[in-house]
């Protein structure tokens, strides 16, 4: 429809890739200008009319809680995932319908 552009996540990712490559050729100042434009654009895209969009970033952060780096505290544990030591008997449906 005239005046309305439908933007998908793929469009944004592909533009971001091109801009990333392009930014190699920019001066520091030009990069700041580009970042500012990107911020404005991101703000516009995350306006209420675009809220139905989902992304790998999930729902945009609305109100920052604590400091981001707080999340690193106790993030690490030794070891990997675990499971029952005995071999599972079958699919879950078997225990539900008795089949």
């Amino acid at each position, binding site marked *: 429809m005239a005046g309305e552009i439908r933007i998908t996540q793929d469009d944004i*990712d*592909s533009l*971001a*890739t091109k801009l*990333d*490559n392009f*930014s*190699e050729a920019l001066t520091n100042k030009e*990069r700041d200008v580009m*970042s500012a434009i*990107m*911020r404005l*654009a*991101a*703000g516009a895209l995350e306006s209420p009319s675009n809220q139905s969009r989902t*992304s*790998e*970033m*999930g*729902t*945009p*952060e*609305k109100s*920052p*809680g604590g*400091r*981001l*780096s707080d*999340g*690193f505290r106790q*993030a*690490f*544990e*030794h*070891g*990997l*995932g675990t499971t029952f030591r005995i071999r599972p008997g079958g699919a879950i449906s078997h225990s539900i319908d008795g089949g």
Partner: protein
Amino acid sequence: MKSARPKTRSGPCRVGLISMPFVSCFRPSIQLGLLKSVAAARRFSVHTFHLNLDFARQIGPGAYEEICAVRRAFIGDWLFAGAAFGDALPDRAPDFLTEYDSDIHAAITSVDKPAEYLRTVREAEVPQFLDAMMAELPWPDLEVIGFTSTFQQNAASLALAKRVKRAHPSIVTVFGGANVEGDMGVELVRAFPDIDYAVTGEGDRAFPEFLDALASGRDPATVAGVLCRRDGAVHGAGCRPAPVDLDTLPPPDYDEYFDRAERLGLLSMAPRRHVGIPFESSRGCWWGQKHHCTFCGLNGTGMAFRAKSPQRLRQELASAARRYRSFTFEAVDNILDMAYLRTVLPQLIEAGTDYELFYELKANLTREQLRLLRTAGVRQVQPGIESLSTRILRLMRKGATAAQNVNTLRWALYHGITVWWNLLYGFPGEHREDYLAQERLMPLLAHLPPPNGAYRIRMERFSPIFTDRAAFPARQVRPQASYRHIYPGHVALDRIAYFFDYTFVDALPEADLAGIRRRADAWRESWAEPVAPSLTFHAAEDFLQIEDARDPAQPGTYTFTGPLARIYRFCSDRPVTPSAVRARLNPDRPLDEVTEALSGFCTRGLMMRDGERYLSLALPATPGR
């Protein structure tokens, strides 16, 4: 020396095209296949003889392939030098075996005593092989024999040419291939009278025109690209044939390669063959046209990039699959045509082909592009990674960053594409810190495919570091030492050599690079273990766990929720700046807080930082998306 003016001929001549040791026996020669087709299209009777197959069978394909793969010593040429140069042989004493003892032991592992084995091959196997080929090939039926010579094929080709000229003086000999480019071809023709002609540059048009001239009694030396001796000088130098339109070329003919390999028992008869069929979709290099990588010996005049049309390429692959009963193809291109990402590759997906393709390509590919490549059947790539330092990559004019290289390794692994790559060092202007930083980075990449090794760059003829001494000041530039063990004294080694020894004025000494070599070795060894290192993330919405088994003996798990989980995923597709992360996460967050979070991931070895950009290192748990 008398000039090689041809006798008057009438009718198409009978031609034999020969591939001598040492070049891999596992695939046909595209040079032979293509020249056979172009000459046959002009009604010449052409046969190809992959005599490298015969020699591989005679000495054992294992050791044969190991000799083909030796990087420095030119063992293959040394083995045939005795037969080629006889009394003029420079190396009667076993100097060569002593000087290259460590290279030989490292490279040849399939026999117990490699030095003794090589001496036996040189003194007994080579003469026996040449006798057998003289007895077996239909020499009286041939009027012209063409040798293709690339890297280690000179001495073997000269050895056979000498015997043929002695036994059948009327046969015209012609040399072609990479060893005949530029000054190297001029010197070969000047120094070796058993070579009547050489075709330099693209032979697709020059070779059939040369045959036409011979057949009709015209002077073949008038054909652009043809060299010969005239009155003691080399005639035709500096005149190259014009580049051809690749769509006008016929497909290469490999029938005789397969017949021979099967007849010799190297390849068993089967309904389907797992043999890489060489194909050519482009020539030249679109990147090198703009920025010639400093170490690359691709000839300046051969740099002009041209590609086959998508339709033509698809037809060629389809008919080769049918004809040779193989679905495995190896592109001989220097670099993938990026337009194919929009044309050929989606078309192959659409057509549902099951090809397994190999391509060389430029390393700054995106996740999406790698997914497309894999879906289209690209199983193996050589992306010219060369370094994990953006500064070193700039010094070599590679046009990629360290983070882009790492990202290519990540998504290639994720999509199941095998990556072949090397680490290179020895660039003028490099600093110790450039390599210390790589040493620190490499253990964090243990879950990604390791390099084949870390090597000092070789100085190749035609490369900028060879041709532009003002920009790359070097001391003691001289032909690589192995050449003097091979060629007789009357050969100008500085003209026949492709590789040169040198010392750069401001490159690091070998001792400073021991660390990076050790790291590369350790990386490769860790991938040889039964359980390969891994770094994987499992994601839910706003929740992320990263399983770190890069050291399988000490695995650990990181758990992140909320914004940190989102940041990690946002930095996974490609390297991004803190500003981009903030714009995406929440423009109200202070930038330094975002940067601090990114640094937190780096401190834990879960991300890498390259200049202003950050890249997550783990790969998603669900493969192939």
